[in-house]
């Protein structure tokens, strides 16, 4: 008996953090939806009453998970993954359309959002695949399969019209990185983001020139002042800069594409540094110009506006920037200690749209001030680091990979949601884990976290 007690080691610290976050979340939902006319906190007509029910359901799910044998999760990882994919497809076919996206399925009195459940399922599937010893991420085909596991649910969710939830899956690249994917991919990702933002802010010619100058520097450092090589590097670029002035974006993209492929061929064939750098410059240019073109011609108006508001290219506090501006006012007016529970004027006056769901942090920021902000950020940071610590103490690679999946997804949600409420990132409609109002989200995150807690609790029992 004593040996069993010793071997089942539940991490109560994580569970405590979970309860603190959920409790704080409920309080915030209560404050956001409070109305003198409905004093009963169990009132099922109000968000806080419904959220209370969802907390109960989530706790039940957490309890059920603890009853399962952990081997169930490894054995049925693919089944669960497959089942959720089917659910996503079913949502696409039978789903109810709510505010522009078809991501809800009616189950009895409630609406279920399959994409919330897809997160833990994808983590399970990915963990199952990568824990296989043969799945070496240095190998291209394995990269493709791992990428596929992530991309399939992502695409299905994208098809539902819920771009925000789809983007969340990008965060799983951190798991791949941890499991051996080259850091180059991560660097490439970051470069892509930097170029993306600068492409929308700075004229194309400047970006191209900057890249060219940087790479020219690299060339000179490696090869010295070889004028023939420098000329070889600069002349084609000068030609393109000139072309930029006379042709429209689409033509330029085509020209860039053709020259890019042409120089890629030469680079692969000759393996000369100058050609490699030239090709690199060209591909960066294609990307930059491509982003610019896509932004202006492919993205829809409201997407463009959301990005524009964060980048500061659109200053419109009444129209598109209204949400963000009101959110910042609510949070910023909280001061150090906040206005007190139920005392937030912006909160009570419904100035911030989506205040119970995506903008729940506004309520906390306004009513609990900077102190409240610190508590929320502290709890999340602690939870994420704790989850990584749990992951790292596993002998089982399955649990470790799953743990990183949990950390990545929570991190992404936390960063994007918090960032958007204070104007650091574009407004992407994804909830703040454990705090935002919404049953599917709470249930999904609870399952996500408690599977890890279950797996971790039995880390000494089995070796997977």
């Amino acid at each position, binding site marked *: 008996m004593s040996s069993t007690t010793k071997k089942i080691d539940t991490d109560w610290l994580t569970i405590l953090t979970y309860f603190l976050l959920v409790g704080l979340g409920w309080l915030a939902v209560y404050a956001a939806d409070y109305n003198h006319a409905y004093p009963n906190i169990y009132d099922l007509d109000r968000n806080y009453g419904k959220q209370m029910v969802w907390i109960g359901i989530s706790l039940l799910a957490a309890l059920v998970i603890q009853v399962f044998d952990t081997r169930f999760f490894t054995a049925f990882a693919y089944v669960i993954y497959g089942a959720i994919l089917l659910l996503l497809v079913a949502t696409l076919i039978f789903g109810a359309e709510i505010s522009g996206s078809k991501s809800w399925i009616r189950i009895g009195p409630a609406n279920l959002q399959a994409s919330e459940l897809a997160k833990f399922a994808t983590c399970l599937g990915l963990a199952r695949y990568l824990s296989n010893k043969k799945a070496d991420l240095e190998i291209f085909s394995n990269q493709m399969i791992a990428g596929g596991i992530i991309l399939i649910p992502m695409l299905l969710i994208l098809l539902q019209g819920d771009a925000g939830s789809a983007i969340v899956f990008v965060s799983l690249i951190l798991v791949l990185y941890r499991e051996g994917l080259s850091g180059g991919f991560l660097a490439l990702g970051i470069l892509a983001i930097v170029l993306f933002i600068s492409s929308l802010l700075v004229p194309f010619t400047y970006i191209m020139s900057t890249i060219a100058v940087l790479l020219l520097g690299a060339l000179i450092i490696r090869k010295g002042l070889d004028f023939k090589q420098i000329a070889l590097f600069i002349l084609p670029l000068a030609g393109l800069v000139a072309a930029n002035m006379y042709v429209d974006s689409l033509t330029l993209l085509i020209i860039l594409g053709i020259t890019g492929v042409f120089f890629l061929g030469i680079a692969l064939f000759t393996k000369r540094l100058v050609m490699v750098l030239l090709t690199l410059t060209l591909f960066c240019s294609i990307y930059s110009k491509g982003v610019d073109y896509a932004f202006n011609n492919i993205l829809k108006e409201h997407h463009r506006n959301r990005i524009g508001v964060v980048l500061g290219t659109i200053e419109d506090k009444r129209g598109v920037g209204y949400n963000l501006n009101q959110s910042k*006012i609510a949070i910023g007016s909280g*001061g150090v200690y906040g206005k007190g529970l139920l005392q937030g004027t912006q909160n009570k006056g419904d100035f911030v749209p989506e205040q119970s769901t995506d903008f729940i942090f506004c309520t906390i920021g306004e009513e609990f001030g900077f102190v409240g902000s610190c508590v929320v950020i502290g709890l999340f940071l602690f939870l994420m680091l704790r989850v990584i610590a749990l992951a790292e103490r596993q002998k089982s690679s399955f649990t470790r990979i799953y743990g990183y999946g949990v950390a990545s997804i929570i991190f992404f949600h936390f960063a994007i949601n918090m960032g958007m409420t204070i104007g650091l990132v574009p407004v992407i409609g994804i909830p703040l884990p454990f705090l935002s109002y919404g049953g599917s989200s709470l249930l999904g995150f609870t399952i996500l976290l408690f599977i890890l807690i279950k797996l971790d609790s039995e880390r000494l029992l089995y070796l997977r």
Partner: protein
Amino acid sequence: MESLNFRRIVIQSFMVIFSCVLLGRLFFMQVMDNQYAVMAKNNAVEKRTIYPSRGLIMDRNGRLVVNNEAVYDLVMIPRQVKSLDTTKLCELLAISKQDFEDSYEKMRQSKGYSRRLPQVLFKQIPANIYAKFQEYLYQFPGFYTQVRAVRNYPYRNAAHTLGYIGEVSQQIIDKNPESYRMGDYIGISGIEKTYENQLRGEKGYKEIIVDVHNREIGSYMDGQFDKDAVGGQNLQMTIDIDLQSYAEELMQNKKGGLVAIEPATGEILALVTAPAYDPNLLTGRKRGSEMELLKRDTLKPLFNRALMAKYPPGSTFKPLMALIALEDGAIHAGFGYGCAGGYRLSASKTVGCHGHSSAYNVKEAIKHSCNAYFCQCFYLFLENRKYKDPGEGLTSWHDYLNAFGLGVDLPVDIPNALAGYVPRPDLYNRMYGENRWRSKMIISLGIGQGELGVTPLQLAHMTAVIANKGEFYFPHVVRPAKDDTASIFNQKQISSIAKRHYKTVIDGMEGVVTGGTARVAKVEGLDICGKTGTAENPHGEDHSLFIAFAPKNNPKIAVAVMVENAGFGSRYAAPISSLVIEKYLNKEISEERKFLEKKMLDADLVGHLKRYTIP
């Protein structure tokens, strides 16, 4: 494994660094930067103005003459208006679709237009229409009503004296930004203007918390910074509204002015200009169009003849002429002057007079209104040896008249009263050349003709001063507080003319009514003293004038009446004056004078004038 450990650190660093970035940004927003708190207050806390109720106005007997009536402005928040049933709205508000479109366009073009803020679409919906509309208000999301007050006049009289209120102009807002804001009401004319500061009261405000739809959800900081509105002071007028109403009736269908003053106090009892209008026309929604009609009326009902029309006083000037001639030593009370049907200026020129026995003293001269006598008085006054030339004499005469309020701005509490005109030597120096005129060239001034111009108010004031034997207060329509010693209307004025001269003149004026030119004005037991006048009018029939006061001893009322184009003073002005006096002193008209009253009420002197509206 070393490299994987590094990767763990990379991932952990992402989390820590991003958390720090969030914290840093939040620290800046919540702790360092104050602007969000200000913006939050602008968002959610609205300072609502509480309008004070404008002071009420009573007549001298405490009867309510001006009160406030609730009307409703229809306000819309354009952003909240989703689908609008214009037809139904117009039907409920009893307006045409065109009216709606005009108002809507006007609202959209206004300076402070915003889709998020309340905009006034219709002003001053009357209470009866509002009552019906209110039941359907829920069918018009985004529409609200706000209550305002407009003036209401239970008596339809004294429009010019009361004046009207209207929206304050930008110039005044710029000058008094603390007291007025766009859309506030201000007194524009009459005592509404003069006593604006008392009537206005003090605006209050309360700060309330509103939600995003601008609905009130509570008071801000428990209302500790709120301020109550202080209602305007009520005014007590000196006007007797019944007398005013009666006098207006007598003056109906005539052009002219009537002013009645209580001699002992300077309190104006009635102030009539004819034609008049119902003050209720200039309140409410139709004000603009009604105002246009009044402005374009050929009889100029907006023109306050009692204060602004100048007429030569004619013979009504004679009592004053006698007074100053006596005081100045030009004549004495027993001075007699033979009248041979006129006053001879030269071999060919004579100032005509009517047939009466020659006046052997001042009393008789006034009683018979002898032109020759007063021409001689004036001649003697100017040619008095104490003056070096008639110019100096005329200057002295001018000063005497000024002391009686003629030719100067009388301090009266109704705006825009005119000073009238009393000539000085410089006028004749200009007309005839320096010192190239003689007394006889300006002799008609002595009988109140020529260049003299006085208003009915001045005439009434002059009468009141004579009636009260030189002790007087300046005329006013609002009773000043008794302890307000700074008020000029509380300061007693005393004329420099000896009391005995007044007695002489008053005896003469008594004779006018008992056996002189105005026997029609005689009322048994009232001791009315008066003087008729006929102002020569080169443009048409002469103006009929009469001044009177009663009773002779301890006078209670002094009246001046001017009826345009009505001929002799005894024809209209004297009967009307006597009726007003009788009404005031006896409260009713005696049986034997009812015919006179009916004749005056029925007289229509403007019917033939083809009154029309200038397009």
